Structure formats: structure tokens, C-alpha cells
């Protein structure tokens, strides 16, 4: 086996133009570091699922290249994909088979594992997602949450180095959502790289180390979550009639990016303490009418990037 690649997923200029002429994915350069929990974020219809389908070799890219676990795709798919667990656009199983039989079917399709351990691996995967009690029940009688869990169980049939999960908590109740998130963190802690496609910001904030933001087929941002947060770090904001003097005080206090706008002076707060700033302003004779520390939420950051809101169900 090769040395551990530094990027679990990488692409350059990955593009998909459908026969209709619609460009669903427009030249994106993904870089998912090994071991990361990568939040692949974007409004519905922004090209996330098309990208995932291309990454897994289900769709042929119109142009561009990509690799998984350091190996070029799709030429290495036979070698790479067994090490990749995927949940693409919701679970899909045979309705008249039980959960157990559905997993046995998928397991029988994997030529890198032996059939002799299949029953044990299937049982363990079902237990890990809390479906042990419903293993013999037909899939058609599963609730949405149970179906989602079965989809996750399928990704756990064998150890995976990379998990590509499209909306894994969709349809789960709050308890199920918590369980699945805990499971993902457990898998990540064990060394798997996780690509988590979602439109839920809370999920990204709780789970992810890295983020890629899709908007209309383009990757408009890609960074560590920490870096994205500081992109919109908290700012001190002084409302006053003596704007220039206020700006001078802020500069003198060592604050960066001092700007003046609409009767206000603002600057990056950095490590400065707000109460000390207020004292300095008053001490310098600035008539302070208002003082606020304004922090952009992650949501505001993403709305700014995409021009659209998140947390939209569906």
C-alpha cells in the first residue's frame, strides 16, 4: 500500500455539463486533507450531489480530473472504492428484502471480502447503527430514519478510509441525529476521512474541521473551519459624532482594519478587551453614543458567500 496521501480527495477543474447544456459543476478544485471531517456545504441544487456522483465514478466528468485516497479516478476505482463508504442522495434498498438481506446483497457484490465473514460483518454494522432489532424486517416497513441508518450501516460493512456521506442525518429525529453525529466523530477519531455533504450549518459547526462551500456549481470557498471563522472575526463598533478621533483611539489600541462608515468607526477586535477600549475612548474625550462587539455568525459568512440562506429543509 502506498504512503498515506496528504489529500483524501482532490480534484482539478472538475466539470459536469449535462446534455441539456446546464453546467451543474463548474471547474471545481477540491482539496480534502486526510483525516479531515470536511463539510461540503451549499444550498440545494448547488452541485454537491453531482460532484459526489462524479467523485465516485457514477457520472463521467465533462472535463477535469480527480483522485480519491491519492489514486486517480475512475481508473483506480476497483482498488480505491472498496476503501470508500458512500451514502449518495439518500438510502436505496430492495423494498421486499429485509435490512439484513439488503446488506448481504451489497456485501456479496464486494469482491475484496470473503463471504464466510459476511453474516458477522452485517450483524455488526446493523448493531453499530442501532438496527440490530429490526434486521429481519422488510425494508419497505422501515421508517425514514431506519432507512437512513441502514444506508449508514452499508458504509460500515468493512473498515473505510474515506466516507462520503450525502445528508446523512436527513430524516432522523433529534436523538438519531445525535447518534449519527457521534458515530461520525468516532469514525473520524479512528482515522477515517469524512466528506459530509449537508445544508445544515449546525452540523458543520459541530463536526467539521474543514469546509467547502458550493454555490451554483462553483466552489466559492474552501478552508479550515477556523480560518473561515476568522475571516469574519468579531469587530469593535463605535457609534459617535467624533468618528476620526474614535478611529485614532482604536488604531492606538493596536486594532487592525480600522474603517469608518455611516457615523461609526469599526475595527477588528482581536485580543483587545472591549471594556478597556471603552475606557480609552472616553478618556480621549470621544463622545461614545454606542459601543458594540459585532461577530458575524457562520451563517452570515455563508449567506455572504452564496447570497442565499441555509437551514432550508429539503
Amino acid at each position, binding site marked *: 500500500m502506498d504512503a498515506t496521501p496528504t489529500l483524501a480527495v482532490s480534484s482539478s477543474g472538475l466539470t459536469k455539463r449535462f446534455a441539456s447544456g446546464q453546467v451543474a459543476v463548474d471547474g471545481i478544485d477540491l482539496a480534502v486533507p486526510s483525516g479531515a471531517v470536511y463539510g461540503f456545504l451549499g444550498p440545494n441544487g448547488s452541485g454537491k450531489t453531482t460532484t459526489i*456522483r462524479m467523485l*465516485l*465514478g*457514477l*457520472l*463521467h466528468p465533462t472535463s477535469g480530473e480527480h483522485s480519491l485516497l491519492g489514486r486517480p479516478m475512475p481508473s483506480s*476505482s*476497483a482498488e480505491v*472504492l*472498496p476503501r*470508500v463508504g*458512500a451514502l*449518495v*442522495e*439518500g*438510502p*436505496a*434498498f*430492495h*423494498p*421486499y*428484502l429485509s435490512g439484513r*438481506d439488503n446488506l*448481504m*446483497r*451489497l456485501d*456479496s*457484490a*464486494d*469482491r*475484496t*471480502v*470473503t*463471504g464466510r465473514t459476511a453474516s458477522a460483518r452485517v450483524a455488526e454494522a446493523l448493531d453499530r447503527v442501532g438496527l440490530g432489532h429490526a434486521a429481519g424486517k422488510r425494508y419497505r416497513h422501515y421508517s425514514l430514519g431506519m432507512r437512513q441508518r441502514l444506508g449508514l450501516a*452499508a458504509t460500515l460493512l468493512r473498515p473505510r478510509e474515506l466516507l462520503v456521506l450525502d445528508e446523512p442525518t436527513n430524516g432522523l429525529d433529534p436523538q438519531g441525529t445525535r447518534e449519527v453525529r457521534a458515530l461520525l466523530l468516532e469514525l473520524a477519531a479512528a482515522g477515517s476521512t469524512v466528506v459530509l455533504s449537508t445544508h445544515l450549518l449546525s452540523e458543520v459547526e459541530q463536526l467539521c474541521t474543514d469546509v467547502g462551500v458550493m454555490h451554483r456549481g462553483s466552489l466559492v470557498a474552501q478552508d479550515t473551519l477556523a480560518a473561515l471563522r476568522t475571516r469574519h472575526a468579531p469587530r469593535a463598533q463605535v457609534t459617535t459624532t467624533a468618528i476620526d478621533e474614535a478611529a485614532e483611539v482604536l488604531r492606538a489600541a493596536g486594532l487592525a482594519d480600522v474603517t469608518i462608515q455611516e457615523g461609526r468607526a469599526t475595527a477588528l477586535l482581536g485580543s483587545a478587551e472591549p471594556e478597556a477600549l471603552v475606557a480609552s475612548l472616553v478618556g480621549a474625550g470621544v463622545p461614545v453614543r454606542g459601543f458594540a462587539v459585532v461577530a458575524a455568525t457562520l451563517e452570515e459568512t455563508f449567506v455572504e458567500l452564496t447570497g442565499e440562506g441555509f437551514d432550508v429543509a429539503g
Partner: protein
Amino acid sequence: MSRAERGAGVRLLRSELRLIFGRRRNWVGALVLASVPILIAVAIRTAGSSSGDSFVFGQITDNGLFVALAALTVELPFFLPIAVAAISADAVAGEANLGTLRYLLVTPVDRTRLLVVKMTAIAIFAAVAVLLVAGVGAAVGLAIFGGGDVLTISGTTLGFGAGLLRLLLVSGYLTLCLVALGAVGLFVSTLTEQPIAATIATLVVTLASQILDALSQLSVIHPYLLTHYWTDFGELLRDPLTLAPLGPGVLCALAYIAVFGTAAWARFTTADVSA
């Protein structure tokens, strides 16, 4: 190649067969296929054969094995094709429709390998369907009318064992004919995500072929029709047995399997899977 890889093709094929033969819908279909020979035997037992009956039907009261041949004759134009069309058209389109196709492909199953497994399963299903009709027909026929020597079309008689062998040969030939239909169905199945549409399209191909075959004005295209040689199985009831008359039928079936198998492969290995 590891042990797991060697057994992998067999495992997937077994899973495929379980999917086909474990499905309730297909059990109902099997019941319909099996009921025809029973119906024939009971009808002839209660009403007797009439002078207008064909050679095969006319022999039933003398030898129960002919119930199997009569049932195959009756089911060949529609019942057997509908069974094979339903299974073959469902092969890819059904999985695409459910979405299970994408999970098979990312497991990953090589697309060519998946197609080979699907085609093999279709062929096994066709053989099972034909043998079911023949088997139930022979069993019911022998139970009601008894066995004994078998009269051939040539007027000679064969021993029971030789007669049984002829029935097996007929079953083999018809299986090959239906596998050709299955190849067409498999190809159609790679074109759509709607298994019902694929089934209907495959049936339309079969019935259109039979209609065209019935128009003597179109005799020039008859040798190329899927169903043209299907009824040639009667040649296997002559004495002495010569397989030569079945040559064109066998060639035609193999050609259909090659052409539509290749077309299915060309389509499926390059298609975008967006279902």
C-alpha cells in the same frame, strides 16, 4: 487473486438469483406458467381430444409427455416471453429505479461484470421457466395419461427414455431462443430507469416480430426476426434425429445475444448513473 476475489462472481450471481427467485411477483408468474400444462391436461382429460387438434395435442391421450410439449407450444408466443421480458427488463432498470444500482456500482462492482452476472441470471431464469413448464407438463401428463412409447412426426415410435431426451432437447432449444429475447430485454433495460416501460418495450419487440413473421409479403426479412425460428423445435420430434434443421435458429439466437449483449455493454459501461 485472493480467495475472496475468486468466489466473488459466484457470490454475486447467487445473490442475483436469490433476488429473482425470492421475489413474490415472480412466484406468481411461475404459478401462471405452471398452470397452463395443468389446464391442458385437465381439459383434454375431461373433454377428450378432437380430430382438429395438432400433432402434439393429438398425442396427449396416448402419452402424457406430450402435455409438456403442448404447454410449451401454447406458452411460447406470449407467456414465456412475458416472463423473460419482465426479468430481463428489470435487470438494470429495476435497480436504477430503486436507486440500488448506484450502491452496487460504488461498492464497487465493475459494470461489465455486473452485466455478465445479470445476463447469466437471465439465462438461468429462462432455463428454469422452460423446465418448469416442461416438468409440470410431463409430471401432470404422466400422472393422468401415463407414459410409454412416443410417436414421432415421422411416424416411428421411440422408447420412453428417448422421448424424454427429445423433450429435454426441445427445452434446451427454447431456452436459447428465450435467452436471445433476454439479451434484447437487457439492452432495453440499460436505456431507461422505468422497468415497466422496459418490459413493455421488450414485449412489443417480441410481438412485432411475430406479426411481421406472419406477413408472407415480408418473407425477405423473416430470417432476421427474433421469433422466426422459435417453432422449429418441432424438428426435434422427427426420426431419425438430426440437429441440422435447428442450425439457423441457433445461429439467429446467438447473433441476437451477441449483438444486443454488446449493445447493452456499450451503453451501460458509458452511461451516467444519475438515478
